[in-house]
């Protein structure tokens, strides 16, 4: 993966596959403590202890079309090569919480990429899932959720192709303000 936005898009597909109805994505950029933190919290079907132990193994996957699953291993590698970590807490029926931390100043830390595009794509592609995205850059913050957008659009379906560019622009202009620039 070239940048963090692609990792987000990829890792959230796991929550979608776990039939989550609510997915919370949090991105924190903290210069003083020198880290980038990402958490994805879902209420999907969760994993048992045995599967959880194997989940970072590239040869673990639930899909039937191929025998490898690289989403989590690639994210883990990218986090660990900066001195960060990836942690997953999960219980069957209780959902899953994935947290990743990158050391921001490390030379191998991945760039942000097009975070606005990723969030807009997710929200507009899965209108039946309640997404909330929260970003904090030092002391500045921005949040957006499926509910907010539905309220603003009053009945226009989020998955209509005319809606995506608007939603993307809305998120992008707010992220610009927080100086999350697309370096991807």
């Amino acid at each position, binding site marked *: *993966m*070239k940048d963090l*936005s*692609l990792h987000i*898009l*990829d890792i959230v*597909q796991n929550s979608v*596959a776990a039939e989550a109805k609510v997915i919370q994505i949090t991105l924190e950029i903290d210069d003083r403590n020198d880290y980038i933190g990402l958490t994805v919290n879902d209420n999907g079907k969760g994993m048992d202890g045995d599967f959880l132990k194997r989940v970072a193994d590239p040869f673990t996957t639930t*899909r*039937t*079309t*191929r025998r490898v*699953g*690289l*989403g989590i291993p*690639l994210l883990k590698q990218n986090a660990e090569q900066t001195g960060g970590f990836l942690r997953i807490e999960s219980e069957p029926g209780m959902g899953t919480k994935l947290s990743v931390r990158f050391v921001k100043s490390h030379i191998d830390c991945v760039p942000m990429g*097009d975070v606005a*595009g*990723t969030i807009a*794509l997710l929200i*507009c*592609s*899965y209108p039946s899932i309640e997404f909330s995205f929260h970003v904090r850059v030092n002391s500045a913050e921005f949040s957006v959720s499926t509910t*907010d*957008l539905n*309220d*603003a*659009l*009053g009945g*226009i379906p989020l*998955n*209509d*192709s*005319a*809606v*995506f*560019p*608007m*939603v*993307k*622009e*809305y998120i992008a*202009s*707010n992220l610009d303000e927080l100086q999350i620039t697309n370096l991807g």
Partner: protein
Amino acid sequence: MTKVKSLADLKKMKESLQAKIDLREKGDAAENLIQIKVAMATCGIASGAKNVMEFLLEELEKRGINAVITQTGCMGYCYAEPTIEVKLPNADPVVFGYVDTKKADEIIEKYIKNGELVDGIIPVNYESIDNK
């Protein structure tokens, strides 16, 4: 166009959006809809599926083509990512491999508009991944 910066701005766009949608829906019944699925698993994303999906969403809208674009999982053609499945009305779904924005443009102009086949189809007896 003014920049959409707040939810209030988004609300203001509502009317023009609604007008666009009404116009489109008059012309097309549901069975005439073009369905496109973009394979958005790790393999697809790593090869650029996100750009392709954004390109399709934006361009089909600009070119006035009524299509539903959704994400799907890995179809097992990791070697040929990014892949997209296009289902035209009254036709079997067709999967295209190695789709970048240039290829996507060609698919829109030739296959979607004129039903003319273009290179890069992954043949084999294909079943939609949802049926597996």
